[in-house]
């Protein structure tokens, strides 16, 4: 019973205290809120460390068993350990850290984004092959207008693209963001009231 009720009790009490500290910035509640938030940040950092260690463990196991793709796992483990050691000893702003980032991370991630652009164009070309609906045709039309209007060669195309972004796209995004905010609020309240217990075995 303690295994099921204790996490729920901690989650509910912590959530209520933080909410009260936000709505009632009185002296004890404000300090409690800041204290609990600091504890949450520390726990988040430790969760990041645990995720890193788990990643290393998985690839080390694959490396030990010589499973398929063990060479990639070897490269990942070596790079992770070397960067960890380098940044831990030299600091995140040292020359070696900057060199690693500017000469390895930036080109690599840029290349991946470039491939994404090719893939998206190909998918857009075949979209009518899979679905021939009015929605698909409208999607393609808007995409073409935005592509040619973002950096317009003709002035009117820029105005059209700007209108699309400022009116219909903006309205849609606002609706989506409102829905996300409401859902997030409800999810948090469910955790505070104990209706949802992601932290326990229930």
């Amino acid at each position: 019973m303690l295994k099921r009720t204790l996490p729920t009790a901690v989650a509910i009490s912590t959530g209520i205290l933080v909410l009260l500290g936000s709505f009632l910035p009185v002296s004890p509640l404000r300090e409690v809120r800041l204290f609990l938030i600091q504890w949450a940040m520390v726990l988040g950092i430790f969760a990041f460390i645990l995720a890193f260690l788990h990643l290393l463990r998985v690839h080390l196991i694959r490396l030990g068993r010589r499973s398929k793709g063990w060479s990639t796992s070897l490269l990942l483990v070596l790079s992770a350990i070397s960067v960890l050691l380098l940044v831990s000893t030299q600091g995140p702003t040292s020359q070696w850290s900057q060199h690693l980032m500017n000469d390895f991370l930036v080109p690599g991630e840029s290349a991946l984004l470039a491939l994404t652009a090719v893939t998206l164009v190909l998918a857009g070309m075949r979209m009518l092959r899979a679905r021939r609906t009015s929605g698909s045709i409208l999607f393609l039309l808007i995409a073409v207008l935005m592509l040619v209007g973002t950096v317009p060669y003709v002035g009117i195309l820029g105005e059209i693209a700007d209108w699309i972004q400022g009116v219909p796209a903006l309205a849609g995004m606002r609706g989506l963001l409102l829905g996300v905010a409401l859902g997030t609020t409800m999810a948090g309240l469910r955790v505070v009231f104990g209706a949802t217990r992601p932290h326990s075995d229930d």
Partner: protein
Amino acid sequence: MIRCPKCNALNKDGSSFCNKCGSPLQKTQIRCPMCGTLNPVGNLFCDRCHARLVPLEKVIPPESTAEPEETSASRVQGISLPTRPAATGEGAADKGEESLNWLEGLLKPESEAETPPSETSLPTAGLPDWIADLAPAEPEVQEEAEAETTVAPAELPAWLSGLTPAEPTEESASAPAIPQDTELPEWLAAQGEEEPPAALSTPEQEAPPAPAEMPAWLSGLTPAEPAEEAASAPAISRDTELPEWLTTQREEEPSAALNTPEQEISPAPAEMPAWLSGLTPAEPAEEAATSALDTLSDESQKPTPQEEVAAEIPAWLADLAPAGTAPESKTVIFTDEETTSAQEIKTPVPELETEKAHKTPAWLQEITPAPETISPPPSVPAFTLEEGEPPAEETGEGVVFLDEPAELAEKAVEIPDWLRDLAPTSTEEAPASAALQQAEVPQWLESLRPPGTGPLPETALPDTEPGSIGEEVAGGLIKAEIPTWVQQLRPDTTATVAAPSPLDEVATSPQEEAGPLKGLQGILPALPVVDMPPDFQPQPALGASSQVMEAAQLWQDLLQHPRSTKRPVARAHARPGWGQTVSRWIVAVLLVLAALAPILGFLPETLAQPPLQAGVAPLQLAVEGLQAGDTALVALEYGPAEANEMDHITEALLTHLMEHGVQVVAVSTVPEGVGLIQTWLDWAETRYQPAEGSLVNGGYLPGESNGIAQFLGSPQRTPKPDFLLVLAARTGPLRWWVEQNAVAGSRALPMGVGLSASTGPRMRPYLDVYGVQGWLIGLPGTTAYWQSRGIRPNEGLARRLDALLLTQWVAAGLLLAGAAYYLTAGKKGAA
């Protein structure tokens, strides 16, 4: 599942047509109209709710309609016997279904005890004419009844289907003609040809059987004297209640057959069919014949220790009132029964619907015989005698009863009204007292003997020499004369038996050797699926095709072989066709050329003419309004992947801040942003050489929105900023900064936002929030910001903008080309 005989496809149960080829399917199941349960085709009644599945008219075979004399007024209805439908034609008689073996005692002695027809073979509806003729009526009516030879009630057991009306004439020995074309069992069909005297002449020759089941009213039957008299009245046990129609048969028998039954035949069949199990004592009647029936079923009478329990009297006989004797009445041979009350009769009736055992069958209930048609039995059965009344004289064909008037008098026999009406109005004396005699139990009756009982001692058996009816023979039994109509019920042993079907093989199972059914054979045929014996090999209705057999053999081989430990290899993905590969290469080459051409300087001039964005001017004014020494909090919320785009935005804004002498405090909520912060601070320090402490690396800000709120709410850590500049390529960090800054209310910082081209359209709603002074999006916004300051953007930025323009135009062209192709190509293109 139903397998189609044509295409061998499987169809759902209850399907009428094959789903694959459309051919009609054989009905394998019948759905009950009441409860919806699926029942086998052979069922007449639902297995669940016992509702009728097959309409009554469907059960009637067509031959029954060929008989015009077949009574329409007295159709036998209401007997709900189990489930096997009546077979048509001679096969019905030749099915070998067991009927009540106890009736075999009514047959000729020398005739083999053939299995009488089963009760499950339901004959056609309609009363037997002999029943219709039994009404207490004039002889001429009985003569008419004699002409009716065949009746095929819908639900009568097979052995009753051949029952014919009594011969109304004084040829008592003549058996009623049984038409050959009716559904009669063999042993019934031959009755019409047999001579009753001959049948009666050799009862003593037949070894008395040991019936496992014998109703009380049959227990006292003895073979009739074949000689001068008509069929003598059979010895009827006082324990059984003779129906009136039986008592009327004694007109053919001398009443001498109804001697006082001094000896009682011990065999008491343990089991009686359901339709006989409900026999109750008949009420006393005015006539001796009826009175003989009336007093039979005295419930208070207890069986003597020596007496065996008789079979249960069926309900339809229980209500029968003894009718008056009639000269034309047929004699009935009954074996002597010990018990008299229906309750004391403990003969179990296997496989019969016991719930109907005590009901008068509808076909009997509907009998409304004219009073003239009923002829009283020639002899008064002992069980119908009044108290102290001596047994009636035997007047010919009649019933021989046990001569225990005292015992009989205690019984209360209930005779239904319709039989009471059949009582003969004639003042003819009831036959002589029911002198139950030791009847010669035929073999088929002997097989019905209940467990624990033995065959009759030979001393109790009648003499081989046929004595006169009523004459006492050895063992204290009185010889009785088998009436002709009963002799006609004898199975015809000379008839050819059809080739036994699988049902026959199943039905003729050996006798049970243990348990409550010991000594009994199966009365009802075993259903081919449910009751088939262990060694029974049913033949499939549909032969399996060779393909099915091969598949079945393959399955069997696969299952028999041990399971392979080798894991199945995943199938490799299908390689794309050459068309897809070429199209991919074409698209990639075009995009790369469009991107590289401006950057490599292949374009003579700048093509891009970026529009002025709405937020560029306010942002420029907001930064322009900062004074030297003010502090700007710069949040670098992008990573190395977005650096190529965001670096231009950061350069433009950071240059503007540095040119105004603003102190910069850089923070980042993105882990990889710490390195970028340092890079830019080094750039700024190298280029502008600000005062010491003008560039502060705030480092990583954990906690996302909480961290931002904490950072903004604790001014002790940093000097209070005068401007907040968020440079984001991700939606989350921008949202956090905007929200936490707006929450501060009056203490909210003036805010400037620089977004990537992918983030800008998604975060436009946050750009109109209180506190955001200005914004710019992507490379076009950056170019516009430089132009708003009056500074020509650098050549690298211009080339990148041209590359962006060409790439986007090529991508748009490719999208339109693909859409046009697949729209015009149709299904062929889609395939």
